[in-house]
């Protein structure tokens, strides 16, 4: 493309304006990129093999309501179920978490004896696993949490209860990796039961059951069977895939899909307006130059190509910077959203990359099509007469 140097020089001719335009494009496209990455990770990412086998059963009315513990054995008996484990979101406060967000991480009380049979993708050294299972005051941490909180094996972790009036005094016995982005601290659920017993109340109920299906085909069947089984009991249930369960947390925020989509659309439209305004301005200033180029023998089509090319150059530069920013921001967000979105999914994946590229191109063309076309068609003498 022998005109590329000319195109680039022209598109960057007004330094300040180019800088402002490119920055606003970059920032908007960064925002767009993050939103689309989030959308993609939430609604399109393939569950990991094991995750696709897991279902979560909770109280039909609300996640905060509990179900009798004996449900576990009934669920276990449903055909296609390989194993069931119950676990409880503990909440609580670590250090001065209420003031400093950085101390937050999820904490789960779990039936330690079964958890590794259901969550088969825990990667943890065998000795650490045994050490955890055999000590009721032990806990294990995901690597990211351990690093963020600067905790290592043997350290004590104090968690002040808030949902439950119980304080935990735990010892780190293991550090695990998990490919589906599970982040948090796991401890023996008996800690909650015993604590409650000491306070005079007993607990034989569960907040959530995680089911491991024997095969992906069994998943929908189990889902129906479990919910039907308890439909008319005192605690009706709701069973969904682990992925859908993760999303239902976000549903507290409203219709996430619609919100994300409308923000994306609004952002795209805004960038389009900003870009169109800039291009119109820069083309108008240069109608005379169009006359000069025509005098030198440039055809209408060539000039149209040059003007479109300039606008494309700007929007692609902006898009590329935006993409890099978005990728960086996704990294940061992935840590914060680890509980909801698998961190390795929250990146600019190929479809999102292509979509952003397409939007950049679209903005480049759409913003300049009309002014470029008008300028290219201006009769040569009219163009030359324009004084700047």
């Amino acid at each position: 493309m022998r005109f590329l140097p000319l195109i680039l020089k022209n598109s960057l001719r007004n330094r300040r304006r180019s800088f402002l335009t490119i920055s606003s494009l970059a920032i908007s496209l960064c925002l767009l990129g993050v939103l689309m990455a989030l959308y993609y990770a939430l609604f399109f990412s393939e569950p990991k093999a094991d995750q696709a086998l897991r279902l979560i059963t909770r109280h039909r009315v609300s996640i905060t309501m509990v179900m009798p513990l004996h449900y576990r054995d009934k669920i276990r008996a449903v055909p296609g179920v390989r194993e069931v484990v119950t676990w409880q979101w503990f909440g609580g406060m670590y250090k001065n978490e209420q003031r400093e967000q950085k101390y937050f991480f999820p904490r789960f009380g779990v039936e330690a004896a079964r958890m590794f049979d259901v969550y088969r993708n825990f990667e943890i050294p065998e000795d650490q696993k045994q050490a955890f299972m055999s000590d009721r005051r032990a806990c294990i941490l995901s690597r990211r949490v351990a690093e963020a909180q600067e905790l290592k094996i043997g350290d004590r972790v104090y968690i002040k209860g808030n949902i439950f009036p119980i304080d935990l005094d735990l010892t780190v016995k293991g550090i695990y990796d998990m490919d589906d982005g599970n982040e948090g601290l796991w401890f023996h659920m008996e800690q909650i039961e015993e604590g409650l017993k000491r306070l005079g109340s007993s607990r034989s109920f569960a907040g959530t059951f995680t089911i491991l299906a024997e095969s992906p085909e069994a998943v929908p069947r189990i889902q129906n069977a479990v919910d039907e089984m308890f439909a008319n009991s005192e605690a009706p249930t709701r069973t969904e895939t682990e992925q859908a369960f993760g999303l239902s947390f976000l549903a507290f925020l409203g219709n996430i899909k619609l919100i994300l989509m409308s923000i994306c659309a609004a952002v795209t439209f805004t960038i389009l307006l900003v870009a169109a305004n800039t291009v119109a301005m820069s083309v108008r200033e240069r109608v005379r130059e169009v006359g000069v180029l025509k005098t030198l023998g440039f055809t209408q089509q060539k000039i149209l190509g040059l003007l479109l090319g300039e606008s494309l150059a700007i929007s692609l530069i902006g898009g590329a910077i935006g993409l890099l920013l978005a990728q960086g921001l996704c990294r940061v967000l992935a840590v914060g959203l680890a509980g909801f979105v698998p961190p390795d999914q929250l990146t600019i994946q190929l479809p999102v990359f292509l979509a952003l590229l397409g939007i950049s191109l679209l903005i480049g063309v759409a913003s300049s099509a009309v002014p470029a076309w008008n300028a290219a068609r201006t009769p040569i003498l009219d163009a030359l007469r324009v004084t700047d």
Partner: protein
Amino acid sequence: MSNEPIIRTSDLHKKFVRDEFEVHALTGANLEVHRGEFIALMGPSGSGKSTLLHLIAAMDRPTAGAIEVLGQDIASLSESAVARWRNHHIGFVFQNFNLIPVLTAHENVELPLKLTHLKKGERHQHALTALKLVGLSDRTDHYPRQLSGGQEQRVAIARAIVTDPDLLLCDEPTGNLDARSAQEVLTLLARLNKEHGKTIVMVTHDPHAAHFASKIRHLDKGELLPEGEVPEDWRAAPMASDDKT
């Protein structure tokens, strides 16, 4: 030098219609220019000099009459064919230089070559040669704003001749220049005409500039006067005002 004229207009008319006004910019111009000639077109402001030049360069179309340039009936060419034709055969020099500000002298000169099939290296070389011809080989990397008016105009001339066109059309090339720069530019044009055989049509107000041409033709109120004739009131008025430039 063949005797076949390379520009021939017969009974050329150009009428502009702006709103309800009609302006007859040219009323039946008959011009013949032969290869190797250096013609100066003179005449008072508004007499149709630029209009005639634009018609020759096919930058505009006549309202009536025939125009043949280099054996080509340019009025019959399509828009893009005209553009290509102009790129090959015409070099145009403006009064106000019209260089592209974001390009260096060398890049400006190279620009018309980008429309040809020449390779990068050849384009580079041709542009250098043209700049050398106008005496600016030491200014190749300067941007227009770093050049004096006279230098800018010489770059513009280099740009006009870089494709080795048959015809060089200049619309008041010294109109924006001080006397010394004007002298340089005119000397250059005369040299291009004599040494390189370029046919030149130059519009000018300045009798001194016209002096460099081999032939002078006068226009008056859209009428191209026969060879050797001048407008009646010419000698009295314009001389005095032209001394200012």
